[in-house]
């Protein structure tokens, strides 16, 4: 097994310590709300990155799993009184099951065709939930019953609690990525991302590895869906299957650096910070100016660093992000 070098452990410790004290140090509800969004989207990015980043299967339909997770736990909660703690896992399983037929259809296609097919799957699911009014409240959606402080039902008075749940999910996502990156799966995924035919030639069952990583990616994304709905107390098809979720998942990874452990985290922090700052500087008075500036920054980043901003950080300090199969530059896979 690959050992983390001691500076890596040190940095990770510092980072974890900062993350843990942040809601105590900044007890501002608005700030914590932003932190929660950062953690949540970083987590979704991490889930997306496993498949979209390492194996380069550019999905633009991860909202399908976000929504299935959200609806599964909400239906279980409201119709059957099942705790979202169980619902969140049930949602993950539903997402995994859904990923099998979706994958079977979409993996026949490559590149942009695959991306378009995945968009369609999320849109179809959204339409189904819009039309099934008796089953899942249709277009108007529903609010979740407010139970006050009910930790067993994943409801909390303090925002800090949600913050820690999101932090824990992100930690799990990163740990899963770390393990996969260093195992044979990581090598197979990068090989598929680089050249599927060449991967087949050396014994990689490309369809199977794609199916497996899609299962894992869908499961994790569904967890985020349940969490988000529990956090905002409201669900409707447009929120749960929002195209924004799909785009954001891909965007934070691409900006941060696809196929890297920390890429989605870096990308989310930068994009969310930029977006929040622009919003407070430019306000809403100028209608659309802030979005325009945001887009310009995005274009600049992609032109200047097509492999992601993580490279800027690792060029300066290449230790924290450990070299997996995808990171050729900083030497070894030995160790």
């Amino acid at each position, binding site marked *: 097994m690959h050992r983390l070098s001691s500076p890596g452990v040190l940095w990770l410790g510092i980072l974890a310590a900062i993350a843990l004290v942040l809601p105590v140090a900044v007890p501002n509800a608005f700030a914590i709300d932003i932190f929660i969004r950062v953690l949540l989207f970083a987590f979704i990015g991490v889930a997306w990155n496993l498949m979209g980043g390492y194996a380069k299967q550019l999905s633009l339909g991860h909202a399908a799993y976000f929504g299935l997770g959200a609806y599964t736990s909400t239906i279980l909660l409201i119709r059957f009184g099942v705790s979202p703690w169980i619902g969140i896992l049930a949602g993950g399983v539903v997402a995994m099951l859904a990923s099998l037929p979706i994958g079977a259809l979409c993996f026949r296609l490559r590149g942009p065709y695959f991306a378009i097919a995945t968009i369609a799957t999320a849109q179809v699911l959204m339409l189904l939930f819009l039309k099934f009014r008796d089953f899942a409240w249709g277009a108007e959606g529903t609010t979740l019953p407010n139970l006050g402080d009910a930790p067993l039902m994943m409801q909390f008075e303090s925002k800090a609690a949600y913050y820690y749940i999101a932090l824990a999910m992100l930690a799990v996502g990163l740990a899963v990525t770390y393990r996969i990156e260093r*195992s044979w799966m990581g*090598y197979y995924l*990068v090989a598929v991302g680089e050249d599927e035919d*060449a991967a*087949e*030639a*050396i014994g990689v*069952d490309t369809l199977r590895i794609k199916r497996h990583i899609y299962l894992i990616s869908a499961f994790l994304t569904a967890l985020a869906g349940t969490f988000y709905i529990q956090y905002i107390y409201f669900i409707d098809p447009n929120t749960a299957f929002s195209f924004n979720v799909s785009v954001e998942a891909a965007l934070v990874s691409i900006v941060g650096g696809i196929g890297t452990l920390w890429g989605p985290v870096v990308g989310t922090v930068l994009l969310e910070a930029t977006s929040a700052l622009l919003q407070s500087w430019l306000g809403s008075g100028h209608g659309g100016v802030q979005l325009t500036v945001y887009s310009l920054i995005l274009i600049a980043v992609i032109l200047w660093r097509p492999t992601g901003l993580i490279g800027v950080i690792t060029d300066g300090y290449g230790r924290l992000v450990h070299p997996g199969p995808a990171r050729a530059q900083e030497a070894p*896979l030995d160790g």
Partner: protein
Amino acid sequence: MAEALVIRNLSKRFGGLRAVQDVSFSVNEAETLALIGPNGAGKTTSFNLITGYHRPDAGSVSAFGRELVGLRPHDICAHGLARTFQVARPFGKMTVLANVMTGAFLRNKKPEVARARAREAINFVGLSAKEHSPARDLTTIDQRRLEMARALATEPRLLLLDEVMAGLNPAEIDQAVALIGKLSQRGLTIVIVEHVMRAIMAVARHIVVLDHGQKIAEGDPQQVVANADVIRAYLGTGYVHGAPGGGGC
């Protein structure tokens, strides 16, 4: 001697083009066979048919007693047939070591074991000094070496090499010939598609000549280069190799 690979009546057409027509040949275990012929003769298509990248319209391919038609490329690799591509296809952003480890994972999923096996293969092709270089930075010959190491890491019994010498200079060709000789000595069965006649004469014990998708000649190297059809279709009348075989047309 046991037959490693048996190809019977293999045919494949792409639209109106008959890429491979009714081709049969077999390769004995531990033998090196060369597949030669002009461009478009169906050599690479034959490779793709054998290794599962195309499905033949008719005919059969069996290796070590098992029918391969209908299997996917990774199954065929697991069965002991490894191939290289005409244009090397390294995983560019991986290091040389990571590339070869990916091949080694076929037989053992433990990273330490795969790493050790990969190092052996890298050492065998003489690429140890560049173990940590990203594959995309390698020169042409080193990319070919890498492909060979990656294929060897899957522990094949039969190796299919598609024009590994194209684009190499004479000194590099000598190195490649020596490498193939070394592999053959280890008992590996080799099928090689090649245009460099000097190399073919040095490594092949048996030659199959294709032209327009059909087999036009087969035999040991001396017989083949003296064959009138082969000279007309491929070698050209200027080619003289020992015997004054029937020239001209």
